[in-house]
């Protein structure tokens, strides 16, 4: 379901200015036009992670960017690896 900017700000417990920074740093990438961005639950969970990193773990702005970039790579690798493993299983079953 689409989350509006107002709802996103409320549920992510953040303000307009902070959100603008997150978007310009490409930490959060909402859909839709700039005038009316549309957020998802995944964006909201990502905002939660950014908050954890900055407030709880004391990571600075540069650090957050590095972590998110590596994390996105890890998730893509995990996806590639699990696809590879599943493909391997099917090959095994068809009896080579």
């Amino acid at each position, binding site marked *: 379901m*689409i989350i509006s900017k107002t709802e996103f700000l409320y549920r992510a417990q953040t303000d307009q200015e902070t959100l603008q920074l997150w978007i310009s740093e490409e930490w959060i*990438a909402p*859909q*839709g*036009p700039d*005038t*009316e961005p*549309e957020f*998802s*639950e*995944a964006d*909201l*969970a*990502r905002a*939660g*992670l950014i908050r*954890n990193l900055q407030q*709880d*773990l*004391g990571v600075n702005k540069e650090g957050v960017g590095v*972590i998110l*970039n590596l*994390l*996105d*790579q*890890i*998730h*893509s*690798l*995990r*996806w*590639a690896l699990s*696809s*590879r493993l599943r*493909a391997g299983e099917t090959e095994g079953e068809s009896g080579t």
Partner: protein
Amino acid sequence: MFGDMSLRDPYEVLGVARTATPEDIRSAYRKLAKKLHPDLNPGDSKAEDRFKEVTGAYEILSDAEKRRRFDAGEIDGSGTERPQQHYYKEYAGAAGPRYQNTSGFADLAEEDDFLAELLRRREQQARRAPGADRLYQLQVDFLDAVTGATRRITLPDGNSLDVTIPPGIQDGQTLRLRGKGAPSRGDGPPGDALVEITIRPHKFFTRDGDDILIELPVTIAEAILGGKVKVPTPSGAVMLTVPKGSTTGSTLRLKGKGVARRDGSHGDELVKLKVMTPAQPDAELESFLSNWTPNYDPRRDMQP
């Protein structure tokens, strides 16, 4: 070690002495959280439980008042977890191509057909992904909802959208306009526009499913003697015969003057009469009625 979560001593969980300063506690928490945060350990399901425990302990010890109450034995180490947070890792797989970063294995794909194919399909999928659905609200007049109409919505981006309202639409119904949602970010089809309809009330018509209800004021003479009266319907006024001896609450049915149904037939209009005495004193009526003795008791059913 981490078995019993409910009553563990928060000092023990964070590995700090009872005399630890707030600064000690914070740095102990950060050290553990960096190791255990579920999103920094996406493949380790045990880390999540352990992280909850550490966070719960920190909630107590980082708050001077809670820490004092724990030290005084007024509260135990349980029930202080934060509200459940949804971690990003739960969505990472489904988040789609937006946050995908395949540079971690792009070089390997050059040597591996499977990975190369995976990348190719992923890109294709991203390109073909449809746009998002957009939600709109539209208020329509009562009669437009009954007879059908075309209405134009002006969109936030300045464009407009023509919405054809089918006859007989219900309050709260949603119309789906295919392809009128957000454009695809690649070259997939656009999403749909979902238009939720609210119907404005009418001055004298109301609706009950397919039937139109109206309360029609009539004079005493029309009720007692009967006669022809003009009644509004959604498709224009019609003449209705009020039978002799009608009263307030008598309901007459105008067949087929209601709301259109899907099969092409129509509901009815139900006309409920309401006998109205003159708004101003009427000398002629007064003198006529002073010679009349009613031979009925309208409060018959109200005897105690």
